[in-house]
């Protein structure tokens, strides 16, 4: 049951669009930086397969420039 965090870089001028797109994905929690063109993202999925599918889905977002993995945890739901 992976929990992973990423730094997400939007295409210039499309930070808000990327924020909305990510917030529409139920497995994502996203926090935009106040003063930089970057967002912090945490994904919470049931298994590795679901995580991979989610990342594939995120990769299709047109306002996304790049996604950098920061940390990964594997745990069980409470």
């Amino acid at each position, binding site marked *: 049951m992976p*929990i992973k965090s990423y730094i997400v870089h939007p295409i210039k001028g499309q930070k808000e669009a990327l924020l909305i797109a990510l917030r529409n994905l139920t497995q994502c*929690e996203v926090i935009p*930086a106040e*003063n*930089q063109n970057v967002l912090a993202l945490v994904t919470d999925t049931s298994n590795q397969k679901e995580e991979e599918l989610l990342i594939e889905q995120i990769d299709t977002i047109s306002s996304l420039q790049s996604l950098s993995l920061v940390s990964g945890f594997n*745990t069980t739901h*409470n």
Partner: protein
Amino acid sequence: MYKSETTRRNFIKKMAMLSAMTAAASMFPGILFASEQENGIPQDANLDWKKGPCRFCGVGCGILVGTENGKAVAVKGDPNSSVNKGLLCVKGYHQIMCIQSKDRLTHALVKKNGTYVQTPINEALDIVANKMKETITAHGKDAVAMYTSGQSTIPEGYIASKLMKGAIGTNNLDCNARLCMASAVAGFLTTFGADEPMGCYEDIDHADYFVTWGNNMAEMHPVLFSRMLEQKSRRGAKIIDFATRTTRSSTASDTSILFEPQTDLAIANAICYEIIKNGWVNNSFVEKHCSFSKGRTQMGYGLEDSYKFVDKPEKIDFEAYKEFLKDYSPEKVSNYAKVTVKDIKYLAAIYGDPNKKVVSYWCMGMNQHTRGTWMNNLVYNIHLLTGKISQPGNGPFSLTGQPSACGTAREVGTFTHKLPHGVVMNKKDREMAAKIWKVPVEKIPSKPTYHATEMFRAVDRGAIKFIWTQATNPLVSLPKTSRYRPAMEKKSCFVVVSDVFPTPTSDVADVILPASWHIEKSGLYGNSERRTQHWNKMVEGPGETMDDAWMFIEVAKRMGYGDLFPYSKENHVEEIYNEYRQFHEGAKHGMAPLEVLKKESGAIWPYVNGKSTQWRFNAQYDPACSNGEDFHFYGKPDGKAVIWQRPFEEAPEKPDQEYPFWLNTGRVIEHWHTGSMTRRIPVLHQAMPNAYVEFHPDDAKSLGIRNKERIKITSRRGSCILPASINERGLPTKGQVFVPFFDENMLINDVTLDAFCPISKEPDYKKCAVKVEKV
């Protein structure tokens, strides 16, 4: 957002988010994630938002605390605060998580036969008062001492001063701001005759250049640094980082210049040399508004007990000052400062350009210095020679480390030599205090006694037999704790500790008093820009916790001083503040009325005719200016600021064959000072769980040291074992190691030296000699 019953999975998600934010901070120093404040607040929550200042650091960000059913559940930045404009740093928005820590001190503990016994608070206060009285009767009033904090509120500091100096009649009162701000105070007083910065944070919006002197603002003052970065991005303002270690601030700056420890004294003089040589002096400003002086040199370093020093200022003229500076040409200084001639000239040219506005910022790098007062004087010299002072975007600005180092320690005056107005040595100041306190003037002693380091030496010598500390953790934060921990364990001294959490200091206490955390009481803090901020009590504290001011009042009553402390439990904060305001009446330091502070997110003193004074000494902004000129340095009798002739002198201890490395100590963004609060905030603790020792990669390679290997750091005073850190958070220069001091399990202050500035008495935590070995 911060419920105590956070699930493990939610906690891991928070950790993951914090990891991402921390990683982002390493790529973009000064980055802020303000929305984090809102994240996790239940959509249907019916929160009552109450305003106050942040508990951590001296910036004084405004916070809004969301309470629900009597519990603090959320924090966000106060958008109405001009300090932070709604932003907070990682410590700020997690701050309330510590107050429900499982090991919170909720009841008084009294040591009986070597064991702490939970005791009703009234009984514990009886013990404290009786012990104080007995000690005074048996050994005299100077056998009791109090050591307070820049985290104490203004009313708490005021009552501590009134109890010790007015009621008991001893100057045995000092505070932990001695360890962080005393050199700034002494610098301001010797140069301007008036403490605290003349400018304000709005300078950031006007300056073309920010020169940071030994100051890692990206980690220590992140909200202000973020404001600087915004100006860099928006207007092209430049940040020049001038330091002994490469930090997150360095990497975000336009230019990073590194210098050999202690040589900042010489470089500042070299900048002045260049300013004069190149004709960049603002002659009319200097002629009208400055005088020149020199003081004693070769003062020593206070390493011996009962060390005394009195400066002997002597007037000189501009020509004599120019002659003195001939030893400080960039070419000469470059030889030992390890800074290129080009870089020294570059710095001088920034200050010397009449069309550029420059703000200098500093904090511990300049203040924790055996010549800290001189260093402060020297940066003022640069601004005075060029006339770049007391104007929007132009000025020297010392930042504080604690939320009320200015408001409480410096303005109320919880130092041995201070009174709420002026100093104990001045008869008029004693008379004013005696009148307001309603005590005979003879009661207030005219001689200072022990500053912080000397106070704990006196405990060790057995001269102090009772000490009461509040909101501070000296057995982690003092230099050379290898001496002062055993001193405090001696049976010759009765130790009382008031605090929120157990600490290594409370571990040696005879009585532990459970203190309220800041939002569990009403209070006032004063920040770095002379801004006084009030807050109302937001939640009830647990158990029998009590605010420090009320503890003092209860003890005062038990000691027979009840008539001097006629405050009510319900309104004592208001009553004390209104009494305290009398000390500062007038245009030079008038404090805002409480009703204003209750409504607004702080006001800057001098508060005159309903208005804050943003730039002191400038007739355009400061109603206290009365000489008919553009500027008036009214703190000095002749209305002139002093340009001081201060030489370079070596540090008391330098690397040698046996101890070949400089040791520099400091802080990290995740933790507040000794970590007693932030290490109880799980996400902060997990993000930075322990201290470490940073090496330059070349030094690590030559010693065969790899990351995480256990390293023993040893000085002539003690040793400490920590994991190695190479190319991680910061990068010391070759021949230097750096250790953060927040970790009570890795006490680096067992290793540091208790040398101090002879004028300010502030210790130097940035320079001593150590050896390193793998264990």
